[in-house]
């Protein structure tokens, strides 16, 4: 099975819309697919991976992209 990778930029969103937008995107992708989420350090970086894990998604990777911008890879 080919797993697709999707992208989402929530660097302009604030809590709780950061995770709302992440959930919306996750709802649209197939099980097993990956979602690369661009988000800012601080609250989004603290909460989005934590909430994703709590709600049964797998956080595969968190990496710094550029200064305050991070990429979190979540698998559905």
């Amino acid at each position, binding site marked *: 099975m080919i797993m697709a990778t999707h992208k989402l930029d929530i660097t302009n969103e604030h809590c709780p819309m950061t*995770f*709302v937008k992440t*959930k919306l995107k996750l*709802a649209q992708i197939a099980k097993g697919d990956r979602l690369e989420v661009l988000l800012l350090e601080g609250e989004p970086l603290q909460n989005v991976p934590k909430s994703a894990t*709590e709600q049964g998604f797998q956080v595969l990777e968190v990496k710094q992209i550029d200064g305050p911008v991070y990429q979190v890879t979540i698998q559905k």
Partner: protein
Amino acid sequence: MFDFSEDQINRYSRHILLQDVGVEGQLKIAQGKVLIIGAGGLGAPVALYLAAAGVGTIGIVDGDVVDLSNLQRQVIHFTPDVNRPKVDSAKEKINLINPDVNVITYKEFLTSENALDIIKDYDFVVDGTDNFPVKFLINDACVMAGKPFSHGGILRFEGQTMTYVPGSACYRCLFHMPPPPNAVPTCSQAGVLGAIAGMLGTIQAAETLKYLTGVGELLTNRLLTFNAKTMDFRKIKTHRREDCPICGKNPTITTLVDYEQAVCDLKDRH
């Protein structure tokens, strides 16, 4: 399928965040059709919360007009609504809270004549009525039509509620027949603490949303009662009765009946 607008995503964000509701659950709520019978003490909080939750279609049945004495607990009606039909007042508030909701009004009381026809288009029925004859009528009509419903009743400082789905204990499994007219006071005779209506109605609203989304366990085969004086809540286990006259093995009730009402209730209904 995921065609919520930005405003709707924002409006329903606290549901979308919930693990058990999420986008899928919010879509089920948006596709839900709920009938509220009675736009009074119970129907008011039920209608307000279901409207806020984004239930797609809300039907409201009530033949009454707003009376000043209603405003102590029927929080969907405001002072300028006195003498207006309750369904018109309720529809206006529902759409002020949430213009997405399609409201269908029935400016009439539920009777054995119209009950099956009114309930047939809905997924879930909420009993927000204040008298036994119509509570039994709602039960019988919902059992016959295979419609799930939430029963609710309040009096003085107390409330009770149960949820029926086809196959679970029905209201008649618990209470065989309505009490004789005037044997039990209605809240228009005995009084009721206004906030009790909110306590019970919001439980019914939560049951409705649980039914629509499939989240959790409904109050089926259990009767929840509370007394607000002590804030004691009890859940009493109930069972479907094989000899129930409506949902049992050999039902003796095969047509809907209008039981006699207490005299003082009838005179309010000119």
